[in-house]
């Protein structure tokens, strides 16, 4: 137990500092020859009942595919999710710490953080990663969730310095962001239905994979499909692969008919 002056309150990162468990920061330049896995394209968009998040499954090291089944879109807590692009190692650690912080706060305080509070928390973590980002280990997440107080879905995007920007309609990040973002921009309408929004998100990843070598498309041989999840008032729900098979078959048929 801590004395009142040294008490870390409901902050888990602060608790880690107090007990001396902060991860060591790297110093010096990360050489080009030290290639580490990078995670690529993720998108998020608002629809009638909340938000949809989607991300491809590929991680690359230079010109090699290092993982085919990486999950870059993960649940943060019941009503929010986070998607990451950038250096896979630091990004995964950041997501793990973020999930823990949200749960830790909820348990210590007895109630969950507001969506705004969660977004700010992530902003601080991204800022904390700035020294590593200067050495090439850039982590830029998307944060999306359902705001129970305002009763709508909200999207946040970040820059390497921890700058936080709220997006109204959709957001894309990673190496394929240009292609994925353009597809969503063309197809986005206010109050889309769930199915239409899922189809649009899948289509955007398809086009990104088509044009960007670091983005993975649906892998029918291995049965690997993007991670797609909806976040509504009922919470986080990840789509089953069996549903995605259908969505991608429709897209493939459309592309063949072109």
């Amino acid at each position, binding site marked *: 137990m801590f004395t009142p002056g040294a008490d870390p309150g409901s902050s888990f990162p602060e*608790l880690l500092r107090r007990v001396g468990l902060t991860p060591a920061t790297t110093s010096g330049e990360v050489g080009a020859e030290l290639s580490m896995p990078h995670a690529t394209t993720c998108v998020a968009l608002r629809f009638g009942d909340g938000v949809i998040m989607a991300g491809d499954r590929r991680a690359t090291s230079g010109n090699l595919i290092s993982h085919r089944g990486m999950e870059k879109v993960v649940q943060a807590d019941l009503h929010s999710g986070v998607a990451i692009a950038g250096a896979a190692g630091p990004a995964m650690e950041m997501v793990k710490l973020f999930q823990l912080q949200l749960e830790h706060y909820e348990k210590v305080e007895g109630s969950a953080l507001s969506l705004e509070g969660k977004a700010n928390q992530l902003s601080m973590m991204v800022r904390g990663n700035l020294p590593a980002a200067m050495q090439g280990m850039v982590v830029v997440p998307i944060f999306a969730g359902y705001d129970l107080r305002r009763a709508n879905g909200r999207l946040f995007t970040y820059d390497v310095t921890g700058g936080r920007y709220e997006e109204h309609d959709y957001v894309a990040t990673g190496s394929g962001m240009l292609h994925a973002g353009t597809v969503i921009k063309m197809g986005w309408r206010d109050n889309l239905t769930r199915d239409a929004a899922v189809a649009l998100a899948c289509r955007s990843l398809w086009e990104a994979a088509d044009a960007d070598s670091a983005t993975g498309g649906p892998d029918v041989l291995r049965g690997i499909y993007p991670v797609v999840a909806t976040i509504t008032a009922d919470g986080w729900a990840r789509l089953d692969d069996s549903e995605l098979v259908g969505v991608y078959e429709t897209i493939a048929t459309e592309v063949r008919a072109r």
Partner: protein
Amino acid sequence: MNMPFYVAPEQVMKDRADYARKGIARGRALVAVRYVDGIALVAENPSNTLRKISEIYDRIAFAGVGKYNEFDQLRVAGVRAADLKGYQYSRDDVDARSLANNYAQILGQIFTHEMKPMEVEILVAEVGVTGEGDQLFHILYDGTVMDERRYTVLGGDAEAIGGRMKDTFAEGQALSDAVQEATKALSGPDRSLTADDLEVAILSRSNGRRCFRRLSDEAVAAALAG
């Protein structure tokens, strides 16, 4: 120079224990009981905001009776210890037994070394993957740990409540039966408790990763109605 009066150590310990027990007996009691899908925790607590029962980790719950600020301090220490251990090693390595030992150390230390013992009794409950793995650790103000198998009672009047539980407990009972039986045991023959007077939470095996869930007043009323 003034010499302090000599007081026999037996007397000091006895006085402290009496003091702690009196403080605990003033508060209302709490029952934890196993049911078919996990563990139900039922507390007599008219407050809707100051909780006696709370979540510590995926499969672990905490409950305390006695002085609120003291058991709440212990609750937060437990959440921290569990989250740190889960972060450092793995979520599977966090277990109720080591947490109960931690609590016993803290309470024992305070009981022998501080001016005032903590006026609390706490419970650390863990729901297993199967019923065999369910664990209830009941820890007293002086750090005594008791490992219970079927149900446990914390707080004032524990003996009478425990006696009533013994008569009605059945292995593999449904949740509504467990809540009814705990409520009857808490109220005794002369009063009746409604959902408003109770705080009920469960550790349920079928609740996904985080097994802990609070029951709303409506859900408690429905369980009490049968």
